[in-house]
């Protein structure tokens, strides 16, 4: 019988990140997404006879930033190589990539696991290369269409060491890379549009074995969830194969997200021998120390650094800090809210609660939020200064979301200010007690749980506007008598 516990997975990820330059890696054509087919492919992208590549120097800056963020060495000189294969979306019949002397080599990334522990994943290298075009099979009867708009878009491929042990770790690593590239502003990291793509090298071995099992490479995994599912599937498939007495074949597999399976690519879909050799059309690139140090000096705060700052400065929990810091836009939003509300903890709760819930409900990006950070900050400060209760604040927030009005306007127009006049609350408490003599007797005879009933009745009496703290306090006094 199969015993999955005897096995461990060895996983390495290759992550392709599209760099958000205005023009392509080796040509001046635009890199915008979504233009009509072949309208953003110039003579160089079309591999016209006689054309030559010219390196877009903007990518060097981006790659160096990434290298620094990944605690890696920056190679100088760094050189380009040709990777030869025939495919219609590869117009030159080779891809310009890097083999020896990749721009980034030998780094690491610390990732946080679900149990809060930290694991260090080695980064083998990150190299620059050009993206391929796209083959379109749907619209052409018996033929394929080729769109070369994407051809030549700069990519950086980040290759991890095979030090990832589970699908969950793989996702944590991927999310961490995603977070870093967004922080560095070198890519939008949009997996659905293909700006970030992931290939997973997976093998399994019996726990305690030193040597690695035969690995497969699963391609075409384009969301965090699919990465987790694809690796899960592949691990189980490999264990089942081996336990059924079969051998794992070293091969490239495609993930099918609809069936949640992986299947081998037909052998013609990939070449075995890429015949790499140095690209003679491009000279090795020397990165001056000054260039690298100027980038070092201008590095933004990175997710891990931000997380530590949030914990120390705002006194947030580790969990809150890392959740907020994972997304740069979210972290920025949080800090803007705090600037207004002056209450970090409450702001964090609101952002991760109501605010994210609304965004997710409407599938909105934070930049498209219907409530601004300043508006949310004001709302939270109205809770802090007891103008409204937390419960009313939720109502107000929903109205703000729907109307884009400010909190103060909604509170004023709808008379939602909290009742904090002690005598007014006392009157309400007395009214509730006198109307509920049965419950009073039961309470006094020991049914403590009925305290909540009285609170609820008073709040109801006040239409939710009574200050809950004051209600509690007065009720306690009155019910003792």
């Amino acid at each position, binding site marked *: 019988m199969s015993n999955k516990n005897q096995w461990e997975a060895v996983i390495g990820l290759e992550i392709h990140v599209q760099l958000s330059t205005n023009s392509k890696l080796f040509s001046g054509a635009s890199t915008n997404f979504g233009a009509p087919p072949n309208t953003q492919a110039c003579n160089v992208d079309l591999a016209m006879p006689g*054309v030559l590549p010219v390196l877009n120097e903007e990518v060097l800056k981006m790659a160096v930033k990434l290298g620094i963020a990944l605690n890696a060495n920056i190679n100088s000189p760094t050189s380009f190589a040709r990777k030869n294969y025939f495919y219609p979306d590869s117009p030159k019949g080779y891809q310009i990539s890097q083999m020896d002397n990749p721009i980034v080599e030998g780094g690491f990334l610390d990732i946080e696991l679900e149990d809060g522990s930290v694991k260090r994943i080695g980064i083998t290298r990150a190299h620059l290369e050009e993206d391929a075009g796209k083959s379109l099979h749907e619209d052409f009867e018996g033929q394929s269409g080729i769109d070369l708009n994407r051809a030549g878009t700069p990519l950086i491929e980040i290759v991890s060491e095979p030090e990832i042990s589970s699908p969950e770790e793989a996702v944590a690593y991927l999310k961490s890379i995603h977070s870093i590239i967004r922080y560095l502003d070198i890519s939008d990291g949009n997996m659905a549009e293909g700006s970030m793509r992931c290939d997973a090298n997976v093998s399994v071995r019996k726990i305690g074995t030193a040597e690695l099992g035969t690995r497969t490479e699963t391609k075409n995994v384009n969301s965090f969830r699919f990465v987790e599912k694809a690796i899960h599937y592949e691990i189980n498939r490999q264990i089942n194969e081996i336990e059924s007495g079969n051998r794992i074949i070293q091969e490239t597999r495609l993930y099918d997200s609809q069936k949640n399976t992986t299947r081998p690519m037909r052998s013609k879909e990939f070449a075995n021998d890429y015949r790499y050799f140095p690209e*003679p059309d491009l000279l090795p690139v020397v990165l001056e120390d000054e260039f690298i140090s100027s980038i070092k000096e201008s590095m933004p705060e990175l997710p891990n650094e931000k997380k530590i700052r949030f914990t120390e400065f705002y006194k947030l929990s580790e969990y809150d800090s890392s959740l907020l810091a994972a997304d740069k836009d979210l972290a920025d939003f949080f800090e803007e809210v705090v600037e207004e509300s002056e209450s970090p903890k409450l702001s964090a709760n609101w952002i991760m609660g109501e605010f994210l819930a609304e965004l997710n409900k409407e599938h909105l990006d934070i930049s498209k939020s219907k409530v601004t950070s300043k508006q949310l900050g004001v709302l939270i400060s109205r809770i802090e200064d007891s103008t409204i209760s937390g419960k009313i604040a939720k109502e107000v927030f929903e109205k703000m979301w729907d109307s884009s009005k400010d909190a103060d306007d909604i509170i004023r127009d709808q008379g939602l200010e909290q009742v904090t006049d002690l005598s007014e609350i006392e009157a309400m408490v007395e009214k509730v007690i006198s109307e509920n003599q049965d419950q009073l007797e039961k309470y006094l005879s020991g049914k403590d749980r009925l305290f909540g009933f009285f609170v609820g009745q008073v709040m109801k009496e006040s239409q939710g506007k009574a200050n809950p703290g004051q209600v509690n306090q007065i009720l306690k006094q009155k019910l003792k008598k």
Partner: protein
Amino acid sequence: MELNELTLKQQLDGLKDSSFSSTELTQDYLKRIKSKDPSINSYITVTEELALKQAKESDDRYDKGKALALDGIPIAHKDIFCTEDVLTTCGSKMLSNFKAPYSSTVVSKLFDEGVVMLGKTNMDEFAMGSSNETSYFGEVKNPWNLDYVPGGSSGGSAACVAARLASAATATDTGGSIRQPAALCGLTGIKPTYGRVSRYGMIAFASSLDQGGVLARTVEDAAILLTSMSGHDPKDSTSLNIDVPNYTEEIDNNIAGLKIGLPKEFFEQEIPDHVRKSTEEAIEVYKDLGAEIEEISFPNIDLSLPVYYVLAPAECSANLSRYDGVRYGFRCADPKNLEDLYMRTRDEGFGSEVKRRILIGTYALSAGYYDAYYLKAQKCRRLIANDFTEAFKSVDVILSPTTPGTAFKTGEKTNDPIDMYLQDIFTIPANLAGLPGISIPCGSHNGLPLGLQLVGNSLEEGKLLSAAHHFQKVTNWHRELPEL
């Protein structure tokens, strides 16, 4: 004297002092092309309409006193240089229907100087060949004797200038493709330092060796054209960002005391007596001109040919992958599927020499062979370059025959690729080291010209040109014209 008998320099002077117009000069060439080229086949495309239009514009500029540096000079471009909206075939069936969507930097620079383009010249397919017999558009004949080859790969450019079907022509040299045809057709041909002339728009054969240059009647003519063609091009990352001297001024520099090196290994080769004799006579000329002659050694020179025939095919195997029938050029009829499209397009579109080199190159780069072939060849290439570095510590230029013999008969070597490859034994080392080389006429045997090669240190085209120019001032080989 007919206008086409004048050198480019004489034509330029004639245009400047209004002895004749560019239109007259252009018409003279066009008429001659019509009558003479059918037996030579030096042109693939004659751009008559464009030439006459450019000549007219040129004449207008002369009339207004706003003439450009090369205004009105009718030249031809090797069909390896992309010319916007004009057929650019590279001598191949693969591009037999290809009109380039843009012009190469070389072509643009010369247009900007006012040259008139007569057409595009025949060449070995994708510049692979030493006899112009691999062209899809037919063999080119040597104007000195139509039974003989003009050399290659720039055989069309050489034959058209030798036959006076153009004032001069652009050409390219990967292993000798300018200098060898220059020698075989009695012309002056210069391949400058790698990176001196932009490769943008010059269809790639072997990117690290390819270099554009000139085929002309005299050193002076070559210097004029080279000055206009050279210079940094941001579109070519391997082009040198170093100022270009005015070579027409440099050619007159004194050469007394010039140190000429004779590589002993070159002269140990099996060379026919007439080649040895003409070279020795040339050495005597240089002695008379005040040059000092010194024997030098190139211990690694025997590696040149094997190194070249690993590296050039390796690079070409990748450079020619883009010809796949998908986007432009030849596509096989009724492809059944993608693989069939690739296989038949490339099988039917490429000739056998091109296929041979793609196969050699693919093999040399294959897993398991890369280290033994490609990498080893790269290391040997460095050894050869080091030999030159050593040599230039003691000499200014290196002298040798350009080729091991005169032109050979059409068909004579087509079944023996190795014998054909030996044509470039003296020219290839300069390409491997990226150095400038020039070939000038220095003799004749059985009515066929012989060439003398001078190789200079990096960026010392000026020194080469002056050494060659002084030779032409005291010899008449370059003045001889073939009877047609």
